[in-house]
Structures are given as structure tokens and as C-alpha cells.
């Protein structure tokens, strides 16, 4: 089924972090092409969100000393942004140039890196790679600080080639060693980039077969022009935005946009979202949501807010600590997100979202409000409506059947108050008619449970 609504829902999941049913309807009504253009309008700012975030940060966050507060600052953007593609791309680049507080140790430098990545998120690739190569957190993370004339440290040069630009097989060990020499002298002093001329090896190097007195910038020029880079970035983008296993043709079209534009990321990102196959059946629900996507899309789908600190431990146990990736390779994603421990974390996080009876944050989840004024002729109808409202698609038969069973009449012996059969309660209100309206209050616990199950359903784990 490829209605404008399901397309709009797909777009919100991929270009953002999900949305409420109402927001998706709005996008669908204005038209999908216009919706895509709005997501791609990177110059559109969200001043209201910026203002509220600045206030929140001033009140509650210590961005200079507390890395959890830096994470909170970032998650706030994901949760609240009305223009989320730049935020999503910042998350993409963080996974790409994966840097960890574990070694950097200074929260403000991590914040600075995220601000930089956000700033250059759709800049020409040469500028992105330039910014990250001069970024203080990166310079510490990959030992550029220790890369000295006569005693090169290969860490940055190797990962730059292998993980940031070319990919394995497109360079040799000599290229790594000689590039490390070219980057000597790039370092950090007092929290900022500094070039130390005395530590720079200005001698002759041979990189990719070219002989010269190369410096770091020469290496960056060479790799942006290298044909492997276009392909490498295209693969990463497609895995993140299109499909855990994107088709070779899709990747090639995006790579071609990179080559044609000389690495203009606006053109490249546009090619990802305007591709004729973007909405194709095989690309729908074809990405396992990352813990960030899962957690954010849960609160966004139900339009619920919970304290952002409550995201931290669950996300860690789901396998994603923002600003603390497991290695410079970032997160593997795909199947790796779904370990057996992680799925328990997901269903338990879902409880935090749906069980918000007395939480301080607004809005809370109010299933009574959702049910109020709606008329259902059967539990099946109720289950189907709730499922569509959260999944933004029709549930699979198994998911629907499980939900009906869960919501439906209890087997004999269910005596406890909170295990009270919902249908019985409903039937008592209107026993003589098949067309009854549910007693929303009696159903509160059961509807919360059903919403939790939907957030934990197989379908919802996929973007």
C-alpha cells in the first residue's frame, strides 16, 4: 500500500525521527513532493526550538563539565525539532566520524564537534572533511596530537582512509605511512586546533603514486577527488537513510550525484530522498531503528515527553551511547542493533513512555483521551485503530491477533482489579448491543499495555 499517508510516514521516519499521526496527515495533505522539499530546505531554521533549548540549557544543563548534559542537549534537538533532517544528518556524521568522550574526556570539545558537524552537515564534502580534520576532539581521539616529525603516528591517516573516505582496498600501507607524515604538526593547544610548524615533516612523500612535499590539506584534496570516496559516502548514506542492504543501483545513483556535484552534500542528500526508489516496497521498514531512532520515535509517535535523562541508561543497554561509540568505526547498525538484551530494553523503554501516569513532564500519555469519542464495534477494530495510530501502517496479522488477544476477554480466573477483563467492563455498560462504546477509564491500563506492545512490536523496530 503506497498511499500519500504511508509515504509521508516513511519520509518522517527516514528524514526525521517519526511523527504523530496528525503531523503525517498534514504532510500527506500538502503533497509528498512538497514534503520532501521542506525536509531538504536546510536554511529553514527553527527559532522557537532554539529559544526553548537555550532556556532549558541555561536552567538545567552544565555543558562544560557534564557529558550527560551534552547528550541531553543533543537529544532535545532530536525530540523537539520541526526541521529534523539537519539533526538526523548530524547523527549520521557522528556515526561516520565516530569520536568518543572515553578518550577525548572533555565534554565541551564533544559539544563543539557536534555543533561543527551540524553546521557543516550539508556543506561540500571537502569542507566537512576539512572541519573534522581540524576538530580538537578528533585530533585527540585519533592521536594527531602525537603525530610528530620523524615519529609519525598513523592512527588518523589510517582511519581517514579506511572509515571516513576511501574504504578498505583503495590505498596501501605506504599511502597510510606517507599521509601520516603529511599530517604531522596538526594538533591541539588549549582546546583549539594548532599547527606546529616545528613538528611538520615538510619532506617529500609519495601518496597514491603522486610525489611531492605534501601537507595534510593536499591529502584531503586528493581523497575528495578520489573516485572511491563518492562510492563510499554513497553506501554509508544509503545504509543510513534507505535500506540496511541498499541496492547497488541506488548506491550508484547517489554516488553519481556526489561525483557530478564534486561532493556538494546538498545535491547528494537530495539524490537520496528524490530517488525514484526511495518509496519502493523493498525499502519500506527495511532499516532496523537505532536506539536513538527507536527511543525518539517512541515519544514522538505518542506525542509524550519524559525526562531526557531517562533515555540514557536504556539507550546504553540498547547498545548506543551517543558521544561514546564503541570504536572509530561507529555503530554497525542493522541486525547488530537487535540483540536479545536490546529487545528487552526496548519493551521496557516502551513502558516508560506509555506508563507515564504521574510523570512531571508534559504531555503524558493519555489513552483515555485517545479513546474518548471514538466508537469501536469490536476489539479488532479498536486494536487495529490503535496499531495504525502508532505504527502508521496496518499491523501484520500476528501483531493484530496478539493485540486483540491481549485486549480481549480474560480467561476464567482473572480476578485482580488491574487484570479486569476489559470487554466485560465494556459489556456491562451496554450489554444489549453489539455496537458499544468502550468505557475508556476501565481500559486505561489495558490501552497503555497495548501501546507498549505496539512500541515493542517487530514492526515498530523498523524504520
Amino acid at each position, binding site marked *: 500500500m503506497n498511499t500519500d499517508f504511508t509515504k509521508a510516514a516513511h519520509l518522517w521516519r527516514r528524514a526525521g525521527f517519526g511523527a504523530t499521526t496528525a503531523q503525517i496527515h498534514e504532510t500527506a495533505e500538502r503533497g509528498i513532493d512538497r514534503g520532501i522539499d521542506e525536509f531538504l530546505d536546510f536554511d529553514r531554521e527553527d527559532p522557537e526550538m532554539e529559544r526553548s533549548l537555550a532556556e532549558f540549557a541555561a536552567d538545567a544543563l552544565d555543558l562544560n563539565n557534564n557529558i550527560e548534559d551534552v547528550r541531553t542537549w543533543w537529544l532535545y534537538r532530536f525530540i523537539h525539532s520541526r526541521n529534523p533532517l539537519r539533526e538526523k544528518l548530524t547523527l549520521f556524521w557522528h556515526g561516520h566520524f565516530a569520536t568518543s568522550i572515553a578518550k577525548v574526556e572533555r565534554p565541551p570539545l564533544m559539544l563543539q564537534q557536534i555543533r561543527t558537524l551540524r553546521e557543516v552537515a550539508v556543506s561540500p564534502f571537502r569542507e566537512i572533511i576539512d572541519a573534522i580534520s581540524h576538530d580538537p576532539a578528533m585530533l585527540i581521539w585519533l592521536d594527531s596530537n602525537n603525530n610528530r616529525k620523524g615519529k609519525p*603516528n598513523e*592512527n588518523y591517516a589510517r582511519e581517514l582512509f579506511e572509515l571516513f573516505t576511501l574504504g578498505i582496498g583503495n590505498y596501501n*600501507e605506504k599511502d597510510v605511512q606517507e599521509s601520516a607524515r603529511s599530517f604531522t604538526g596538526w594538533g591541539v593547544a588549549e582546546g583549539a586546533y594548532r599547527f606546529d610548524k616545528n613538528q611538520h615533516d615538510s619532506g617529500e612523500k609519495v601518496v597514491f603514486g603522486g610525489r611531492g612535499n605534501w601537507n595534510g590539506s593536499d591529502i584531503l584534496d586528493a581523497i575528495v577527488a578520489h573516485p572511491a570516496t563518492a562510492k563510499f559516502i554513497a553506501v554509508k548514506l544509503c545504509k543510513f537513510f534507505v535500506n540496511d542492504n541498499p541496492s547497488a543501483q541506488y548506491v550508484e545513483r547517489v554516488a553519481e550525484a556526489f561525483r557530478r556535484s564534486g561532493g556538494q552534500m546538498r545535491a547528494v542528500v537530495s539524490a537520496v530522498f528524490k530517488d525514484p526508489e526511495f518509496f519502493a516496497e523493498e525499502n519500506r521498514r527495511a532499516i532496523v531503528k537505532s536506539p536513538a531512532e527507536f527511543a525518539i520515535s517512541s515519544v514522538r509517535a505518542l506525542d509524550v515527553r519524559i525526562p531526557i535523562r531517562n533515555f540514557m541508561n536504556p539507550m546504553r543497554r540498547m547498545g548506543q551511547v551517543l558521544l561514546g561509540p564503541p570504536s572509530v568505526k561507529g555503530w554497525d547498525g542493522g541486525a547488530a542493533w537487535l540483540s536479545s538484551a536490546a529487545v528487552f530494553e526496548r519493551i521496557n523503554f516502551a513502558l516508560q513512555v506509555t506508563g507515564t501516569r504521574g510523570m512531571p513532564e508534559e504531555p503524558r500519555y493519555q489513552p483515555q483521551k485517545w479513546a474518548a469519542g471514538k466508537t469501536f464495534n469490536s476489539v479488532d477494530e479498536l486494536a487495529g485503530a490503535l496499531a495504525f495510530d502508532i505504527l502508521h501502517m496496518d499491523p501484520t496479522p500476528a501483531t493484530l491477533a496478539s493485540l486483540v488477544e491481549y485486549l480481549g476477554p480474560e480467561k476464567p480466573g482473572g480476578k485482580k482489579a488491574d487484570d479486569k477483563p476489559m470487554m466485560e467492563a465494556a459489556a456491562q455498560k451496554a450489554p444489549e448491543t453489539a455496537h458499544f462504546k468502550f468505557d475508556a477509564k476501565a481500559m486505561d491500563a489495558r490501552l497503555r499495555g497495548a501501546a507498549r506492545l505496539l512500541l*515493542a512490536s517487530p514492526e515498530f523496530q523498523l524504520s
Partner: protein
Amino acid sequence: MISRRGFLQNSVGALALGGTLPTIMEKAVAAQAAGGGSKNGRILVVVTLAGGNDGLNTVVPFEQDPYYKLRPTIGHPKADVRKISDQIGLHPLMKKTEAAFKDGHVAVMLGVGYPNPNRSHFHSMDVWQSADPELNNTRTGWLGRVVDSAPDARENAMFAFHLGEETPRMLLAENRRITTFSSLQDYNLVADRFAPNDRTRVERAWDAMARDGAAEAGGSTSLQLARRTMAQALVSANELKDVLGKSATNATYPQGGLAQNFKLAGQVIGAGLPVHVVSLTFGGFDTHANEKNSHAQLWQQIDDAVAAFIDDLAQRGRADDVAIMLYSEFGRRVAENGSAGTDHGAAAPVFIYGKSVGGGIYGEQPSLANLDDGDVKFSTDFRRIYSTILENWLSVDSQPILGAKFDKMPFMTKNS
């Protein structure tokens, strides 16, 4: 089609996917009858040292002059190392390992690697974990293929498990998801405190979404993956639910993540669950700068944690059933770099601890006078170790797992 109610009633005891399987209760009884799984219940514990362990500072070739010439800052003086032969010695802090070695309970494999070594962490780790240096045969891991092929793995959600957040490639199987957790407290479905009695219903519904869904036609790969993982989570949590309540010993584990994971592994094994493969990861070995202290701390932790684990197993009467293998994706460059660290290298030693292991030194220490672009050349293909473990320890045919026959090594001759 089975009626929903009938299905649910049958499935409260939660089963693995596919086939007609005994309920958890029946299996628990069977496991106890089999002596807590100790009959033919050998266990392999694999510890992945992530980041590239500096093999030359772990097993020090103190008689080779280039070692001291190329490592003026970080080299361990001959007087400090714990000599296990007239050529090599262990890191100065590996006191308990040295003692276990002298008791004949540690096999030290020298110069382990593979042809055309790759210096990328990720590529090389994939090579070790898939057991495929070309990386073109499969997406599965070598122990995942054991799970796929072992008849009793199918019904046993605890056949293999990983302690951590993410299942490593080593344990990726074609037909199964592998139980993965980092803490048993969190490895379960939390009840809504406003509706505590609803928990069973939620669990039942979630289980049905997973397993009825998996039986549906037409689900995408990702959807099936989610369903299978959910089912695996519920089955294994059911098996693990009593582990924490029992089975403490007097063994004293030190602080730190590695030791705590060993402790958890000891509890699971001690509870009598039919475990055969356990995987742990220990990171921090990517010592590009200021290596000496960090590397020492890592090995201090390993030395203490492994000793505590073996002590724990001994108190449980299971020490003879467990072999512990430690490996890393590569060793490090022979020459130190300008930051008192080392860059990525090639071959390195592998350790196997265990009361049933034939202790000693195996293979040849690579010569530092004969380097390949600054790295030592491997003398033992890592797949020879795998093949020995597969056949002589886990009793499975190594050929289908490794794609070829590799000469076995005699470090498990006590058992073959």
C-alpha cells in the same frame, strides 16, 4: 490453524522457533538428570581482546636484540619479565598466569596470524571471527556455524551466549539469534507498577507477536530478525530467571567489567544450564600512545579475572570442563612510534587457559630479524587452533565450519 488460546496455553513455557520442542520445565528436569549439563558438557569461553593486543609486550622475546633496539621506551627489561622459557617471558604483571602456566594449565601459542595480514581493526577482527581470511564466503561467524550445525543447539537457547550489548560476528548464525545480555537484572520484561498483574499478559502477547509472526509468510528479513530475537530473548530469560538467586561461591572477583562478566558467566555455568560457548569482549588494546601503563593495567585485570574465574569453576566442580581462549585481531608494530605507543601490526600470541588444557608453549616465536614491512611474520595459522578446539574440545567436525581441514595442534591431547 491452532486456536489462539490453545497456542498461548502451550506456549507459556516459551520455546525456541521451529520444531516440536519440550517445554522449559521438561528441559530443566532433563538437564538436571544429565548432571547439570556436565556430561559431555565442555565449555569454550572466548575472550576477544579488542583493539589489537601488543603481543610483543605480552610475551616478550627478551633474547632478541631488536626488541630492545626498536622499543627503547616501552620494552620490558629482561629482568622484569616472567620467564617461561629461555627465550620468552610473560608481561611482568601476569603473576597468576605464570603460576597457572607452571601448573601446566596454560597453552601459549606463538606467532598466530594469517596470510596477507590486514592492519584494519575491523577487517582483521572479521577475519578472526568469521575464520575466513578472504571474507567472501559467509556473513556468519565460526561459532555461529557451530550453533547452526549442532543438533542440541536448536532446542537450547543457552547453547551459546555473549555477555555484552551487541552480539559479535563470531556468534552470527544462519538460523538462530544468539542470547546476548550484560546484566541479568535488566534481562527481563519489567512490570508496570500500576498494573503488576498485567505482566504475564504482556509477555504472552509479545511472545505471540514474535512467534506467530515468524510463522507468517512474507515477512521481510528485518521483520523476521526482530521476531526471532524477541523469541530468543523470552526463551533465554526464562531459562536464566533463577540464576541470580543461587550459585554463589567463595571466589573473590576483582572490580572491573571483565571480572564481573566472568563472574556472571560462572553463575550461569554454575546454575547447571546446558552452556557450551561463552563469549566476552574486553577492549582498550589500541595503544597508539603512552602504552606502557594502559597495557599493564589491562593485563593485570585479565590476570586477576581469569584466575578468579578458574577458582570459581573449581569450587563448582566444573574447572575440568572449561577452556578459556584469549585472542586479539592483531598484534602491534615491532618498533614503537613517536608517542610511546605502537601502531597496528600482525601476528601475536593466543592464550588458552584450563585445567584440561595441555599447558606449554606451541608454535614458534617470530624472529624480529626477519620482518615484513615492520611486522612479525605469522608462524601458526589461527584456524589450526580453531580446528583443534572444534574437534578435540567441542567434538564437532571442523571441516564444514572452517571450509577446509587444518592441522590440529596437540594442546588438547589430554582430551582427544
